[in-house]
């Protein structure tokens, strides 16, 4: 019998089903990225062309992040609760610095260079905001406080970073932070009537925001979504070519590395935000469904973990991250298939690129930590 306080025991207690789901998705992502660089019939030569660089990079990043995930999972959840506020505070401070001294890339001020490091603090906030809110509610509930005002304080805590990220401007990320934050507030028991009222209000405000709150390019993207054919060579081009790729995939797809659309470089950023077009073209409706099902399984598993936690912090932090996951998948796939305007949100574990995988794997690590500590109701004693 393994003693309960050893690392080995903890490892056996990991949520293996969720872990395997994650690994399976990352492997699928590696396969897709291999295809993104390669081709069964290269247009230039007609021969097999293989370029595994994307796939190798992706696999490498995932392996490193898998280690990080296990590290996060195996440390006591109490420690993460202690770190919630400092992480939030540092995140906000970094956002202020980005605003003052960030690097402008592609017209957006998102990156911050600190010595040798280049950070995207808005990415950190995807984790830090739900954590800080969970910690806040945990404290409030422990102190027996309730009422509308704590939700208002929580909302202010959400809007502070959201405002900075929106100013960068990074609509996608700010929406995701907002979503995750509001998700935590929702799970913390805000009155449903109030939620319904807010939704109605937002719906009513939407036209105003559309005409006065958005940048021109953002409006353009929304228009493009409704009518991509109107501008086949401009903003709608990518979308339309992506949809041709997806649609022509059919039920079973064209087969691994057989996608034709990627050959012509018709779809810019196909290996990053538009990776789903390759999944859909080469593996068809069936492959798309398998991938979406994998995400659905991960989300449901996550919610089961959230519900099983005895501590408010664990439950709420887990829920906030699950909301983030749903937003990632929903927004990315939604924009690629033309249901949502194009915002720069990648498909985690599948898309090429380092930032989303870091966020998501740390989030999964926290989720696992919540699972391992589900029996701990975490009294406030000992929390820094």
């Amino acid at each position, binding site marked *: 019998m393994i003693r309960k306080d050893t690392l080995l025991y903890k490892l056996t207690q990991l949520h293996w089903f969720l872990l395997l789901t994650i690994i399976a998705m990352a492997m699928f992502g590696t396969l897709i990225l291999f295809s993104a660089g390669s081709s069964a019939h290269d247009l230039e030569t007609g021969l097999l062309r293989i370029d595994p660089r994307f796939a190798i990079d992706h696999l490498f990043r995932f392996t490193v992040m898998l280690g990080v995930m296990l590290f996060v999972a195996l440390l006591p959840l109490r420690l993460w609760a202690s770190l919630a506020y400092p992480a939030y505070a540092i995140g906000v401070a970094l956002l202020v610095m980005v605003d003052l001294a960030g690097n402008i890339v592609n017209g957006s001020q998102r990156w911050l260079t600190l010595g040798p490091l280049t950070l995207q603090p808005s990415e950190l906030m995807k984790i830090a905001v739900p954590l800080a809110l969970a910690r806040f509610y945990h404290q409030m509930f422990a102190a027996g406080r309730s009422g509308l005002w704590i939700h208002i304080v929580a909302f202010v805590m959400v809007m502070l970073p959201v405002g900075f990220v929106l100013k960068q401007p990074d609509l996608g990320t700010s929406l995701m932070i907002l979503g995750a934050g509001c998700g935590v507030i929702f*799970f913390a*028991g805000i009155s449903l009537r109030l939620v319904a009222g807010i939704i109605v209000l937002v719906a009513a405000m939407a036209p105003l925001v559309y005409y006065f709150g958005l940048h021109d390019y953002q409006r353009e993207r929304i228009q493009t979504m409704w009518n991509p054919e109107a501008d086949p060579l401009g903003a709608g081009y990518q979308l339309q070519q992506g949809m041709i790729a997806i649609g022509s995939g059919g039920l079973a797809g064209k087969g691994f590395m057989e996608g*034709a659309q990627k050959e*012509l470089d018709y779809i810019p950023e196909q290996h990053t935000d538009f990776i789903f077009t390759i999944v859909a073209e080469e593996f068809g409706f069936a492959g*798309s469904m398998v991938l979406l099902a994998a995400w659905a399984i991960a989300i449901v598993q996550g*919610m089961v973990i959230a519900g099983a936690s005895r501590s408010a912090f664990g439950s709420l932090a887990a829920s906030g991250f699950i909301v983030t996951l749903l937003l990632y998948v*929903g927004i990315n796939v939604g924009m690629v298939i033309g249901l949502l305007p194009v915002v720069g949100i990648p498909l985690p574990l599948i898309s090429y690129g380092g930032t989303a995988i870091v966020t998501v794997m740390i989030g999964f690590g926290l989720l696992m930590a919540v699972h391992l500590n589900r029996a701990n109701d975490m009294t406030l004693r000992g929390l820094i």
Partner: protein
Amino acid sequence: MNRDWKNLFPSRRMIFLGAGGVVFLGLTARLAELQLFRQQEFETKAREVRIKLEPAPPHRGTIYDRNGRELASSKRNFYVTLRPEVAGKTREEIGKVIERVGRLLRLSESKMRSLLQEAVAGPRHRDILVADDLTWQEFAQVNVMAPELAGISAEVGELRSYPLQAAFYHTIGYVQKANEADITRIVEQELAAANEAPESPEGKARAAAIRRLYKHPAMRVGKQGIEAYGEAELKGEPGRIRLLQNATGRVIDRLPSEDLAGRPGKDVVLSIDAELQNFAIQRFGSDPHARAGSAVMIDIATGDVVCMMSTPAPDPNLFVSGIPSGPYKALREAEENPLYHKAYDGVYPPGSTFKMVVAAAALESGAMKPEDQVHCPGKAWYYTRYYNCWRPEGHGVVNLHTGLQKSCDCYFYKAAERTGIEEIAKVAKRFGLGHRYELGITGGKSGVVPNNEWKLNNPRIRERWYPGDTISAGIGQGYVTATPFELAVMVSRIAGGPSTPNPRLIMSGFKVPDSTITPMGEFKPGVLEAVRAGMFAVTSEGGGTAVRSGELDPEGKLPAPYTNARMAGKSGSAQVRVITAAERDSRGRAIANDKLPWKLRDHALFVAYAPTDKPRYAVSVIVEHGGSGSSVAAPIARDLLAHALRHDPGARKPFVPQQRDVAAADGVQPT
């Protein structure tokens, strides 16, 4: 403890999962719509015909001589291309097509093999050139057979042609199909010119467009000479043709597209007179002593390079469609170096032609007066050894005038010793030596004007200057070198004085800035006059080394104002080997040149200008391994000068090319 949230959580979770379910259902529904219900529509779209623009090679600018004679022009070209993907899927299928068209065009076996290799290895959707420069009959035959030859198409385009053949091989160069290195170089140049980063979207698009253009079967790139130097201007802007293409990139049809015409390349006018150039080539060719060499002539009044030839030379037309490796190897290995631009790239010891520099430096620095006398016993002792005069018997007492006239080495040993290398180097630079002239041609070398600093910094020597080095430099040997072009500039400066314009080769078409030319500057009164008088004595006074070839117009037949014109010049012989004491006979004379193998004979040089009263043309002639400058090079220089005076290219108004339609439409009036 507040348990509200705990009680609420399951219902909230259901609401959330319900919302998530709606999201996934929405995604699924949309995917089903696109992939299951509208699959046909998108599949059709994927194959749908779309219009793609492909570059069409622009008209390459013509290169003219100063009188408007075409030196490099574009002629109609019938060519045949093969598109591998249409010819067949397998090597055998493509091979069959190549064999059939090859028999039709009588291509060699090796050519057919390399074509098959190219067709199989390269991108299959890209046309490859099967053959060009076809006759009308061949073209028509392929056209008739084309429906049976899958992937073969007969096209009409333009091909570079060089009507004067070998005469301008070195200066104008030639065009050929671009290889990867050419394309990479051009991409770099054009990106730098447009100030675009290679990684930027615009930079990538530009690079891709350049690559596509140069991969076109009818497109050529300047490989050397003006063709390479002026590539950007000569090339023009590609037009575009519209191709009907499906989503997989297959071309279905070509559409007429007059509205997408490109901009033709700029025409270039050279200062060279083709007539004079041809005369020089024939003059060399008819001289049994002149197997290889070069001549440069400069119009002193304008700086125009009116003749710049290097012989022997291959016919650049051979290169345009690719020269087979056998003949090319023969050209490369021939001992006359036909591929080498001897006038511009050839660096030779100037020999006695350098004595003008030493004479001017001695007078300018005050080290010698014109009347100072030196005794020449046939050799002179300096520091550690004897330095021989070319005439073992000696010249007796000589001064600056007779020293130049008789080319007495002893006089110039003494003059060099007294003047010192630094002063000599200064004057050499002021005479235009030691400089690579930017003419608009690729290549080009600068001779060496040595001094102490040069010797210390030369990575292969790194020694201080020894006094003995100065003695050798005094007669244009040792470290001193010059190109025939530099020598022509030197003579034009000596003859024309400080106001002589800098040399130029390109009169219009593109600019060739050369900001580092050393200005001549004013000399002390009498210096240039004394040097000119010495040069005049060489050709015209008894005892002058070239007095036998010094008569420009013995019969008074030159047209006015050049009737009875006189010339002034200086001979030179440059050793190509070290003469050891064992090679000298009892009287100190070296083995006669004509008894040596050709490769070991001295180079013969002659520099001259005419007319002496109002100098107009300066010439430098080098006959490689020609032996004596005064007996081999001087007659050639004389004949070139005489022909220049007869023909007088500088007196005629230079040719101005007609502006082409596109420029005219922009409001530029033809002049």
